[in-house]
């Protein structure tokens, strides 16, 4: 897997690159925002590791330019300025994940793998949560390899949840997203659908968690797997 490491601190870049290479990644290094932009334009990376405090072009600027240019390479931001509000803003602006410096290399590796898996899945139109996966091309769910039979409404709600994995969706958000399909959708109807989905997934290590006041969250129950 090929990574672009955009980091202006030579020491950190060197040691980090060594660690990542030691873990089987192929790592290119760009020292500033502008050369990073050129490299991204010229070559194909599986993931970009982006530092924010860069010379010539800040990480936030580069992020904005990449997203504006429609670049879909997953992007993990690393920064020492970990103001929480800034972190939220970055994720909103299109960063796929965020790590505050210093970080543990194991954690970084795990997140890189997760991001790349997600992005490859998306590229193929496949979303997965543990043994549950959704194939966009075939418009069908499989659970541990078996096709999962769902009603159209159940299918629609579960598709939203798996596409927004890790991100809770409120009833209202679900209704808003399904409104073109179902005109008579109401919060109670969403509750009923979620209830039925839970029954269908009862035996699987995948569950829909209710976070009162926040929304529904699809989760792979790794402990039970």
């Amino acid at each position, binding site marked *: 897997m090929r990574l672009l490491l955009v980091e202006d601190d030579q020491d950190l870049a060197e040691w980090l690159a060594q660690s990542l290479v030691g873990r089987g990644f192929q790592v290119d290094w760009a020292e500033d925002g502008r050369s990073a932009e050129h490299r991204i334009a010229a070559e194909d990376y599986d993931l970009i590791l982006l530092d924010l405090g860069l010379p010539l072009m800040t990480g936030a600027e580069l992020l904005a330019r990449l997203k504006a240019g429609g670049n879909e390479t997953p992007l993990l931001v690393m920064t020492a300025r*970990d*103001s*929480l*509000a*800034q*972190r*939220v803003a970055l994720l909103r602006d299109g960063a796929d994940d965020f790590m*505050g*410096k*210093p970080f*543990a290399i194991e954690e970084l590796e795990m997140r890189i793998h997760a991001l790349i898996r997600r992005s490859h899945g998306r590229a193929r139109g496949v979303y997965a949560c543990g043994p549950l996966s959704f194939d966009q091309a075939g418009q069908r769910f499989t659970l541990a390899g078996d096709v999962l039979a769902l009603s159209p409404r159940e299918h629609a709600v579960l598709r939203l949840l798996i596409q927004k994995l*890790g*991100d*809770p969706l409120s009833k209202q958000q679900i209704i808003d997203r399904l409104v073109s399909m179902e005109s008579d959708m109401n919060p109670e109807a969403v509750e009923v659908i979620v209830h039925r989905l839970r029954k269908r997934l009862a035996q699987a290590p995948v569950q829909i*968690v209710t*976070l*009162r*006041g*926040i929304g529904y*969250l699809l*989760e792979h129950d790794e*402990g039970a797997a």
Partner: protein
Amino acid sequence: MTRAAAPAPGRPLWRTLALWMLPILLFLMVASLMLSMKTLREVADSAYDRSLRGAIRAIDLRISTESGGLGVELPYPLFESFQATAEGEVLFRVSTDDGLVQIGDALLPAPPPLTVGQVVFYDAIYFNRPIRVGAYMRPLDPPLYGAVGQNLIIEIAETTESREAFLRTVISRTMLRDLAALLAAALLLAVGVHAGLRPLRALRDRLDLRASDDLRQMDPAGLPREVQPLVRSVNRLVDRHRIQGEAQRRYIEDASHQLKTPLAVLRAQIDRGLQLNDPEALHGVLRAMREITDRSSHLTSQLLALALARNSALWSGSAAEEVDLSALLDGVVRLHLPSARKRRIVLEVDAPADAGAVHATEALLFEAVSNLLQNAITASPAGGVIVMSVQNDAEQTVIAVRDEGPGVSDDLLRRLDQGLRFNLPRTRPSWSASTGLGLAIVQEIMATMGGRLVLANRAPGGLLASLHLPKKHAGLKAG
């Protein structure tokens, strides 16, 4: 924040005073001039009229009817002296009220209705010249030509050039005098303001000449009483800065102590590692080093967040805005959701659909709420429930985080009750309890917003940590 009317531009004091005083002075002077013109005219008239009256008397004494007709012997010497003083022309007419006899200037305008025995003065026009006329009527005894109840009318007139000239002189002098007084007032005002502000300029020089780190109190003695409150305010401000600077200094000392300790530990570990030949033992040292690094990086972020909050206390209000609480809570929850779900902790938000807004610096409030949630997640048992809530009433907004953890020690609660600030522990920090610093950050942030942090252990177990934000804390902070 509601903005008051735009502040007045820095107009010089003397001009403000002049704008207040001079129009009023000018108005008073014009009014008094008009009043004195009226009085002067009356005085001048009565003086000039007296000589007219004298001339009438003189003519009256020289009228004879002994010849059967009407005879007047004109008092020429009187006329001459009269004419000389009046610097004009003197006219006269002696007539009977039936108009049968007229001696003198027959073309004088007819008098107004007269009363017997009374001298009447009036203004009239004679061949386009303004004149002043004195007229006197008395019964003619015996009457002429056997008429019955015949009256004699004596009129003396003089042209009024001289009295007008006199009036003009007097009035122009009065105006000149008033104008001079006005100028003198303006001058006095400027000089007075200049002199009155001298202590202020001296004060400014004293402040300018101070070293930037000189935070001593200023002595208000010798300054005008009106300025003394200002000096006392400046003193209070300086004092606040001194106290804050003191806290900052203490904080830096504490922080450098805390930051250097893990570095020293790391250094010792490296030195130890270099002595070791056994790879297994070396690995053990490296693992220990990694732990120290993790802790110290967490500590560093916390210290920086605390420093940021303290710094904001100095500049509070500069970045304050209306913060939408629903969006804020949503952001905080999404930020911490992964770490909470890792331990199957259930996060819940209990807030009205429209939780409203508070006036705050968003980044700081986010930091505060985030710290409370972070603490709750750390304290919560796996699979526990953490509820974040928002409550609004007329005076305050309360953001609360409720967990099912072990709660906090009575000692900590007591310290909070006594209004003590959490501070950096002087001794080696206990690594496991990251809450101490987190709460210090929250408390610091609450101080900048005029709010307060309330901790309470819950009866069924767990902690209820709440932020009480006054609805109008911007005003409180400024006070």
